[in-house]
């Protein structure tokens, strides 16, 4: 019986190992078990992990207190690296963290419209039309008003129904401000995959 158990485990392990590569990109780079954003200007996830020295300066300069740090529960490889949970506190795109980061894990980006739209890619907002009040006929538009890049990253149509555009940088202010519970708009992080491609 023991040998059979061992073989079963072996086959199970091999199956998991073989199916890993076909899992989504996000599942491969995100091993922490939570949905989080990296600070604006962060390198693609694997490079970020290897280049971040865990000094904590990005969090110490963030005026919006949105940057927090992973504990040991989320894995040793991300321990003490910075992240943002947009529903808790979202990024206001002040770009101070990139300036202060000594390691290059967060690249410095100038605080201009062009630079931010061109270079920042924390993720992308996605609207759940089943949850969104505006799509349910109750005019809302809070996410649109919270957005720093109105009409560039997000547009509203009839009944303030939000529509996310390609230029969304994923700062998360829309998710932070959504009055639905659970939130009807949320940032889907891409961990820098888009910029690499």
């Amino acid at each position, binding site marked *: 019986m023991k040998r059979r158990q061992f073989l079963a485990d072996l086959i199970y392990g091999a199956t998991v190992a073989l199916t890993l590569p076909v899992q989504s990109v996000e599942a491969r780079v995100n091993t922490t078990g939570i949905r989080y954003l990296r600070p604006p200007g962060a390198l693609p996830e694997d490079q970020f*992990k290897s*280049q971040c020295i*865990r*000094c*904590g300066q990005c969090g*110490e*300069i963030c*005026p919006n207190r949105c940057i927090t740090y992973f504990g040991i529960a989320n894995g040793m490889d991300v321990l003490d690296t910075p992240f943002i949970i947009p529903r808790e506190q979202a990024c206001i795109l002040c770009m101070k963290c990139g300036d202060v980061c*000594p*390691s290059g894990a967060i690249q410095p980006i100038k605080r201009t419209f062009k630079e931010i739209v061109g270079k920042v890619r924390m993720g992308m907002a996605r609207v759940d039309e089943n949850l969104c009040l505006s799509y349910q006929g109750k005019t809302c538009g809070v996410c649109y008003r919270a957005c720093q890049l109105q009409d560039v990253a997000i547009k509203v149509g009839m009944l303030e129904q939000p529509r996310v555009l390609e230029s969304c940088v994923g700062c998360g202010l829309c998710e932070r401000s959504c009055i639905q519970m659970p939130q009807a708009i949320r940032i889907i992080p891409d961990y820098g995959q888009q910029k690499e491609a």
Partner: protein
Amino acid sequence: MMTAKGNFFHIRHLNKLRWVVLSIVFLMLLLLPFIYLYQTYVAAHAYDLLPASEKQIYNVMEKLTSPFVSDPENQLDQIKGNTWSGTLFGLKLSDPLAVVSQAAASQKFYWPFILTGLIPLIFTLILGRFYCGWICPATFLYELNSNLAVLLNKMGIHSGNRRFDRRFKYLVLAVGVTLSAVAGAVLTAAIYPPAIVGREIYYGIAQGGYSHVVLGGFGAGAVFFFTTLLFDLFVSRRGFCRYLCPGGALYSLLGRYRVLRIQRVVEECNDCAKCNAVCEFGLDPLRDSFGQECNNCTACIAICPTDAFEFKFSVKDKVFQGPGHLGRSYRRGQEARLMSEPDE
């Protein structure tokens, strides 16, 4: 012989200066998170909405910083970070261990970051492991911990004073850097006390989850650091720094041929061995053995009753010069020589 009494610049006082420097560094690490909190309050323009405790932080920090800055939200960004990596008025400084670990983890040389380790590197090449004695915020706590051990001993609770092989920390350094390279993450940051202390103070004060509670956010590093304190207290005096610290290992290697080192003046030495007793790193100044481990902390200079130590520009320690000339065994040797001389 120049006496220490009345001479403000006597090298005996360097140890006091060292404590002043250590205290300043540690107090800065305590102060910076509060300054950061103050900045966030200012940025939020919400003084009236703050709870009483945070209003107090705001008021105190405003008093402290208002003589120096007019725009706290931005001007106070000039000093950030900790001794692992910090920003001082636009100058970025990093621990050489951070530079080495990052290069290993990312398997490439990111020059803007490597250059931030240049100034500490130059200082280390000249002064050796001085960081460990003069700046490291963990040293501040470890030395207080050593004093606590003395106190406990007086109360009858015996602290441990085991000795291990000093070379073990080089193994820790090698394994730490190798594992960082394999894992693709800077793992040494998790076991390096000064990095932990700097980070955890900030976590504790300013990162209390989302509850904004002061001293509520300690992480795993705090537990690790507390364990090293207990190790030092009950297993081996200053054991982590002596035998395990990867940063200490790197600094020791870099400071092997340091230019400025403490040397014993054999003519002034009376063999009292107080220097050996006081040396936090368990070195043997009495027998001229400082080695690459010496961090120029000057504790031996401060305790020496006969001022038998001096700073010398030299890339090598003196070889054992024999017993001190003011000591008993040297005198006996002299007498014996005098007795035997007439016969020759």
